[in-house]
């Protein structure tokens, strides 16, 4: 009886997930099919789901008409650099907030959280002023370094370190480990799921960033993909098919990152470090 109900519930969940998944997939499919359409046929009626003939011209154009490879590289530098710095700073600061105590610690933590409440648009102009005084405009420094510290990363890592059982670290301490060894050998590996989550978020954030890279770069060569591809979206017209060809190629790294990080998400749920 209860098994029967279980199976019905499973079926319902399955259908809901399937519908949800399809809804998520449609825009991607649309992007890919559009990238193979002839420029004029995009608005043909009735709507063509799949073009009669694969039109590779869009890919040729996006790869040759603009410095696509350079933009791709810039996007990778931006997203990976941001991810690396954010994971490092977030984990270190988060661990400090979770495990050490000093005067004014709570105030500092609160202060860092308050920065989450400042809308990004307010920061644009002051940041630009600082970056141009430093002479960093149109360099990778200006693209990446403003994202070096992120209150969300610190918060996420702190919460994660707090939730780890203190006993493990105490055991290491008794064995004579230094605080750094404890952090590096014990706490950090246990935080892998959180790092994977944070890393994915940061990577996607960096990969999708538009406004700041637009402000921070002047030359066409220093642009990441998001800003670069905007050249196909002009005042009055948008070259949808070429744009979608570029976007289809641009979607690959986020998918790889997600697939790579995925197993950590799952392991995070099943992780049991303390028994009995």
């Amino acid at each position: 009886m209860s098994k029967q109900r279980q199976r019905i519930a499973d079926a319902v969940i399955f259908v809901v997930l399937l519908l949800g998944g399809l809804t998520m997939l449609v825009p991607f499919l649309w992007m890919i099919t559009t990238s193979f359409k002839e420029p004029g046929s995009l608005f043909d009626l009735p709507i063509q789901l799949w073009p009669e003939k694969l039109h590779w011209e869009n890919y040729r154009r996006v790869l040759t008409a603009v410095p696509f490879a350079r933009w791709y590289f810039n996007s990778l530098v931006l997203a990976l650099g941001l991810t690396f710095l954010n994971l490092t700073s977030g984990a270190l600061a988060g661990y400090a907030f979770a495990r050490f105590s000093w005067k004014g610690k709570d105030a500092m933590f609160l202060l860092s959280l308050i920065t989450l409440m400042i809308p990004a648009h307010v920061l644009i102009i002051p940041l630009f002023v600082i970056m141009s005084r430093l002479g960093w405009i149109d360099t990778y420094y200006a693209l990446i370094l403003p994202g070096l510290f992120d209150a969300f990363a610190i918060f996420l890592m702190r919460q994660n370190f707090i939730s780890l059982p203190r006993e493990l670290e105490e055991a290491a301490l008794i064995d004579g480990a230094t605080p750094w060894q404890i952090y590096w050998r014990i706490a950090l590996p246990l935080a892998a799921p959180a790092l994977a989550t944070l890393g994915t978020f940061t990577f996607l954030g960096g990969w999708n960033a538009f406004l700041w890279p637009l402000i921070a770069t002047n030359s066409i060569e220093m642009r990441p993909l998001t800003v670069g591809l905007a050249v196909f979206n002009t005042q009055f017209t948008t070259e949808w098919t070429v744009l979608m060809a570029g976007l289809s190629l641009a979607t690959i790294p986020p998918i790889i990152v997600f697939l790579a990080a995925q197993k950590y998400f799952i392991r995070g749920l099943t992780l049991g470090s303390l028994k009995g």
Partner: protein
Amino acid sequence: MKRWMLAVGMLALVLGAGLGMARTTKVVVAGWGGESEIAMYQELLKKFNAAHPQIKAEFMHIPAKDYWTKITAMFAAGKAPDLFFTNNINFPALAAKGVARPLEPFIKKDDYDTGIFYQGILDAFRFEGKLYALPRDISNMVLYYNRDLLREAGLPDPDPDWTWDDFLRYAKALTKEEGGKRTQWGVSFYTYFLFWEPWVWSNGGRWYSPDHSKFLLNSPASVEGLQFYVDLRWKHHVAPTPAEAADRSAYSLFLGGKTGMIVDGRWRVPSLKKKAKFDWDIVPFPRGKAGSIVDIDGSGWAISRQSRNPDAAWEVLKFLAGPEGSLTFTRGGLIIPAIGFDPMNPDATSAILKAFFQPPPPRHQQYFLTVNKTAIPTETFERWSEALNLISKALGPVWEGKEDVQTALDKVAPAVQKILDEVQAERAKRK
């Protein structure tokens, strides 16, 4: 040892002298545009630099999306480009902040003749009596029509002097119904202001009084004109309703042959040439009570106040806006040149006109130029976009057929008037 030092010294001297000689004035030109336009800029500036060894002009491309955010940030940081591309719609707000230099001193110094440009587009770049930009291009509106659909409905090509009544007759004849459902409409329907202001103006209405002190969009002439436009959709049903258009844009309906006519700008020509599967042409906007009045808006370059080399910037500006620049951009096929025919400079200006008249369609390209005679610039002012936001929001229910024009505009009038009053006060303070 000594020789070695001497060598280094010599090298330093030579390097220093070389650097000193190579010192040129740098002029950064910021602008938006697609990849073909970037190439045109680069080609032009290369030519300019070759002819002016003491100036090094450089193009800085900024995508149209968030162009103004970037420009604002650069001004705030004191790193503004020497020349920046702007349209007349966004310009007064910038000019009021004093970011650009008036061009009169430069014009006087060079005895430069601005008469080569259409008067209307120069007016569009005047702010508080001073000219701030030399124009590159003009955008205005004409009516595009699908000749195949007209022929199918037994309609001849519209007369260039046609009236609103003629237009309505055409629109009705082009509307088709099948089983109680509209399958084809007379005219595409836009709700963006550029597309409805000709209906206001051509009926004798205005947005504001000439000095922007009074809101006039809710005055009888303005309301009547705009209501005529709205009635196309909701009373005569010769334009698709939002539900009928679904997610298809006004332009894609025309391109797909679902509407017979569309009021639109020159920028549609390249796309129609490439994609339209029907015969098409253009005709001036139909005549209302006050004539056929569309907008003459456009874009051009202004010299920024922060430029450290305004004189060099002026040289670049003259080159870009002048015959050579105009010819290159006109050849690109995207723009209507702001330079008209100049009897003092017939060869250069007729080359531009020749470049503008590309092989048809449209057969009657001259209308893109003739309409400029009666056209007026959009009535922008310092806080134009704020007022526009209010007005656009108020018109929302009108486009959906839930409110009439008079009611909607009367409701928003006090708020817009308040902005106008504040602008008057700010202007008085600046003087």
